[in-house]
């Protein structure tokens, strides 16, 4: 497959210069516990977070409709609108965000340099900051990479959902440079299903230039672990999206330990028409009536 060739080499070079990667990552690796005490955050950081969270959500919406398209704008945009409920009705996007940010035990020592390398790439692509979300107090010239830089300089561990979103968007613009502008906040969400699959092809391959870009951001001894990580991540993102979009999570009440309504995945699949059971009348007998066998 031929990929529209934007110059990832230049980005890899920038990352290798260590503008962000080295600065952000090395102290964390040398003294992991020291990073537990957050530095005093700049007030800006608090304001930027929700902006970036929206970008993440928009990207993950584009992701989960890949495995369960529905009657929503994201499914329409990828070219597969459906009448019946889909991933967004099942809250697949919330599932992914909750999982990535709350529970994936992914070490910051890996996530932060990745984010730094991605910030460099974002700069080079010129990925715009989602407009309309920034309060007027932000300088209009601020770009996404400037924002990321601000966060990283403040020693913020970026939420994993954001790291994933940056990755998907960087790859999205590789696949289709025109995705830089359009509806939604995230270039990835603007892709057709076919283009999204090509983005995953780059991740899973994994694409050599992408590997070079990200590897450069990693400190030793983690260099060259990136290609394995990308193939793992690409698979895991799709698999986890599928699990979350078809299971009961979106309507589960943990305190009552029950579902509040019939989960989308159950509606779609006809699973347990009358809800949870203690048993099924499905015991037919024994094959050829044999109830035991000899050695």
């Amino acid at each position, binding site marked *: 497959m031929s990929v529209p060739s934007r110059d990832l080499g230049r980005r890899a070079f920038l990352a290798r210069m260590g503008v962000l990667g080295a600065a952000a990552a090395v102290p964390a690796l040398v003294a992991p516990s020291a990073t537990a005490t957050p530095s005093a955050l700049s007030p800006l950081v608090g304001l930027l977070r929700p902006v970036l969270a929206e970008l993440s959500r928009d990207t993950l919406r584009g992701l989960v409709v890949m495995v369960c398209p529905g009657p929503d704008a994201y499914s329409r945009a990828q070219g597969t609108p459906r009448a019946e409920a889909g991933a967004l009705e099942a809250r697949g996007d919330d599932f992914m965000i909750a999982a990535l940010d709350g*529970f994936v035990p992914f070490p910051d020592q890996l996530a932060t340099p990745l984010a730094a390398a991605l910030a460099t790439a974002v700069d080079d692509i010129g990925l715009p900051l989602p407009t309309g979300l920034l309060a007027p107090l932000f300088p209009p010239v601020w770009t996404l990479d400037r924002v990321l830089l601000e966060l990283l300089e403040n020693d913020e561990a970026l939420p994993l959902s954001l790291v994933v979103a940056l990755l998907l968007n960087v790859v999205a613009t590789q696949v289709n440079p025109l995705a830089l502008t359009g509806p939604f906040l995230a270039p990835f969400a603007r892709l057709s299903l076919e283009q999204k699959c090509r983005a995953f092809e780059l991740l899973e391959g994994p694409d050599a230039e992408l590997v070079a870009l990200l590897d450069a951001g990693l400190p030793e001894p983690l260099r060259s672990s990136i290609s394995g990580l990308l193939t793992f991540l690409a698979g895991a993102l799709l698999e986890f999206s599928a699990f979350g979009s078809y299971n009961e999570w979106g309507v589960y009440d943990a305190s009552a330990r029950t579902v509040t309504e019939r989960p989308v995945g159950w509606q779609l699949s*006809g699973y347990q028409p009358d809800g949870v059971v203690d048993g099924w009348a*499905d015991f037919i007998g024994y094959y050829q009536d044999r109830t035991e066998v000899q050695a």
Partner: protein
Amino acid sequence: MRDVIVIGAGGGGPVVAKELAARGLDVLILEAGPRHADPDRDWTHYENDANNPLTGFLRFGPAGREAPAWYRETPQNSFIWQLSGVGGTTQHYFGNCPRAYPGVFQGYDGADRDAYDTDHLFPFGYEELAPYFEWVEATLPVQTAAMGTKEQVFFRGCEGIGLPVQTTKTTTEDSFRPQQNAILQPGGFAGKVTGRDDPRLRYPQATGCTFCGYCMQGCSKPAGAPRNLAAKRSTDNSYVPMALTAPSWAAGGRAAELIADAVVTRIHTTERGGETVADGVTWRVGATGETHREDARVVVLAAGCTESPRLWLNSRLPNPNDWVGRGYTDHFFDWVIGLFDEDTGSTRGAASAARAEFPGRGGMENVGLTPGLQQFAAVFSDSGIRGHYANGRGQEGPWDGAAGRMIGPELKDALMNGVDRLLNILVITDDDVEAQNRVTLSALPADEHGPVPKVAFHQRKRSARTLRNREFVSARAAETLRAAGARKVVRVDWPPLLLHVQSSMRMGASDADSVLDANAEARWVKRLFIADNSALANSLGGPNPTLTSQALATRTAEKIFQTYFGGDPWVHAEAPVVSTDARVTAALT
């Protein structure tokens, strides 16, 4: 000072604990995960609540569910499916208990003797292990599986491709059969009533398997049954209750002590008479972070195929031939889905109650899953996305189109066809022991228990025999589904799913490529035995590993008792007590 400390209460550890507690030894079992003493309180029948690998009550992580799961590095697309907690990974196993094929043992002389992983045979004969198979089969107990709709569909397919029926426990030829499984056969109203909160589905009006379909979420059925009478004989329902109640059912028995939420971080050794000898362990309490050290005459490592090598390496135990963690086998699974125009009952009954055998190549079994896991399994692929890209693979064969994951409308439509109108077949490959597939310590940050394991599998560089076997069985699976009436057949081409795990601390005849001797004692550390799947010499030819592991662990218990406690072996001389015995029940309640 204990007689024996057992590390890990999964498939293997509790077997040694129960056997030696019955002999009157002072046994301590340390389990890293939660106790799960009261499934009615701790468990539900919801797949995300149960099986979410990050947050589920059946996951690999500390007892406190609010704390994150334990991170393990997998430098490839793959998924490690191990569980912490009493019962270990058997908490959600399917209870299938086929015996290892005779061809994977030393001295096998059948006509197909060259068809197996002949470089890595068990260092003794099949006949040697046979009495231990029988002992475990009687203890769990293992029975012939009851048949539901999805078994009927599977059998129809097997008949359709001309396979004969196997009616023995020992496999000798290509054949199919109901599973021999560690699931109590349905009795009373079990399997005859559909319902919720129906008194007929409570114990004792129902006994054994109620066909509830939640094997993957842990078995606590029939409702109201004492723990040792739950249908599925995961060790939390079988061997652990026996170990804890040993004096009640074994003359001279002594109750084992079980401590959960206790992660062993180090095995201690000392030099004695020119030998390195294990003499105790240190563990960390999850809830408090406190550490404890206790000495023992014998240490039994049973933390599983990924964690046993990790603990060995973190304890800086010797590794002169560099085989610690190597030779990891996984049955290089694949997954074939058939879509039908009729009811297949995929989500009803025990998760997998029918199988076919292809000695020398592997085997296959039917598997029913809940909707989220069904879709997870359909997307878990090393062959890219069907119709879009093949990731350098995308095999063609008697399935429809190229192998690969479904996506978008195709994926959704497959499930909308009906989760009970599809049938999955798990392809179980007889895979070779290969040095390249291994556990090492990760360069990623350590957790509170030390460096974490990194599990590397080179699925695209597996041996020619492994790859050939996988293609063979995948083709049989697709043909079986078609013969059963499937309208559409999809082969997914799974990356490694580490669920049938074997041989990462293998026993072997040669000291050049094994960690354990033929007694399952570590070659370089005396008084240290391994009693989980990692001790297996090879992948057994494809049969699901737990029964063989448990038979071997029983034999290991005898070796420990004979070698270090001056006792006599018992398996040849005595009759086993079944884990459903009324004395066990009485002692529990």
